[in-house]
């Protein structure tokens, strides 16, 4: 495998500006927030706007994950922790990055506004492999703070979580967009062959 970059939270701007699209990253630290989608992020942003922030976003990881949280005596255990589709969080992500999030993690990539915020403030998108929950759960050490178990809003401590792939970097590259653009070109070529058959 390629070299893996180990990154610890809180993550600095310098840490993420060093990363390039296609790098492999493993995460360790206590500032990993499970914020599965825009609705859940809305609750977090509301708390910040009201001056009573649920989490401190500076140097944090936002993970798009509807995880499986099992209540135990005195806390919670994470049973499953795979990523969900990140585009569901596109409307709120630029603001989360502006407020200090350095890593946005999920699957499937994100849009232009998020990429611009990543360039401007210094942040990256980490792509986990979809449907690899059992593998990823081994990287979770514990649930540090539970805010709302029904919507999975909580803070995790992770250790060697991943490796995930830098899908969007702080230098304006979005691997997902690049791949889809090339794919569209290929599809046009595939369809054009029938056009040529028709003409000949």
């Amino acid at each position, binding site marked *: *495998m*390629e070299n893996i970059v180990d990154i610890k939270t809180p993550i600095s701007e310098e840490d993420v500006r060093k990363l390039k699209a*296609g790098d*492999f990253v493993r995460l360790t630290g206590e500032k990993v927030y499970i914020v599965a989608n825009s609705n859940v992020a809305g609750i977090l942003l509301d708390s910040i706007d009201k001056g009573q922030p649920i989490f401190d976003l500076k140097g944090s990881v936002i993970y798009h*994950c*509807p*995880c*499986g949280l*099992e209540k135990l005596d005195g806390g919670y255990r994470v*049973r*499953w*922790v*795979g990523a*969900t*589709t990140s*585009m569901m969080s596109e409307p709120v992500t630029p603001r989360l990055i502006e407020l200090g999030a350095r890593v946005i993690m999920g*699957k*499937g*990539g994100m849009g232009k506004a998020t990429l611009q915020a990543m360039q401007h403030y210094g942040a990256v998108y980490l*792509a986990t*492999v*979809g*449907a*690899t*929950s*059992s*593998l990823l*759960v*081994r990287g979770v050490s514990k649930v540090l703070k539970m805010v709302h178990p*029904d919507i999975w809003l909580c803070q995790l401590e992770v250790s060697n979580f991943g*490796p995930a*792939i830098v*899908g969007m970097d702080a230098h304006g590259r979005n*691997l*997902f967009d*690049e*791949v*889809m653009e*090339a*794919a*569209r070109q*290929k*599809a046009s070529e*595939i*369809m054009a062959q*029938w056009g040529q058959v028709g003409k000949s």
Partner: protein
Amino acid sequence: MAISTEILVNVSARLYEIACKTVPADVQNALKEAYNHESSCLAREQLKQMLENISVAKEDDNIICQDLGLPHFFVKYGTRVQLEGDGDLRSAVSKGLKKLYEEPPHLWTRHVNPLNWAPGPNWEGIGTPFVYVDLLPGADYIQLTAFPKGTGSSMWGKVTLYEPKHATLEHVTKFVLDCLFDAGPRACPPYIIGVGIGGTLDSVAHLAKTATMRPLGKKHPNPDIARMETQILGSVNKTGIGVMGLGGDITALAVNIDYASTHSYRTPLAFELNCWPGRQASATIYSDGSVKYGVG
């Protein structure tokens, strides 16, 4: 001898658990094959993690994907089979799912009301689980297949009913590629793609969905359809969308097509996909109460 409700409940629960914790052998083989032939380093690393996840899920007795899905059960019901009591198969399946949460392995998921997105109790929903019954004339057994359908893999299906052309390779390829580009990388490729041709609204969609359940590597018995499957798979993989949309040689593990006759001069088409784990599990329940797990 009648098959007891208790057996139906237990087998339903066990099948759904197996479907959530394992990946069918044919899919595992296809992933290994993809790993051996893939030229993209990013794709290979991700295929490796997928294969590792299958092993870790087994070691840790854990699930493959956090999305336990909307439960679908496909039943092939032998016409000589008798069920105990009122024979309420659907209720037995529902009880089996409830048991998954109430007893070990304690798996749960909640489905929402489409009118207001209010979640229901674990595993309980309006009109769910979806149970489809087909008949096996003269057989004295039931084949039961659990098919969890996750959110991502449920979002990109498409049906078009008034296509004023017959289903040429060009036509179907264009339809599949258009649907594929709508989905992009968002439903965990490499995909298992199902295509339905012909029928009506529900039947064409059903053809596409059940086509995603066909064992990988098994082509359609009609050689024209089989050829179309191979050619469209080639086109899909040429796009280079690759594993999880980060590029590579393999975008789909299979394109499976099924077809039925339709009304004159129009061709319904349906597209459905499944995410890479292709989760499903089957068992055969015999009239004497014995159960054999595995593909029926």
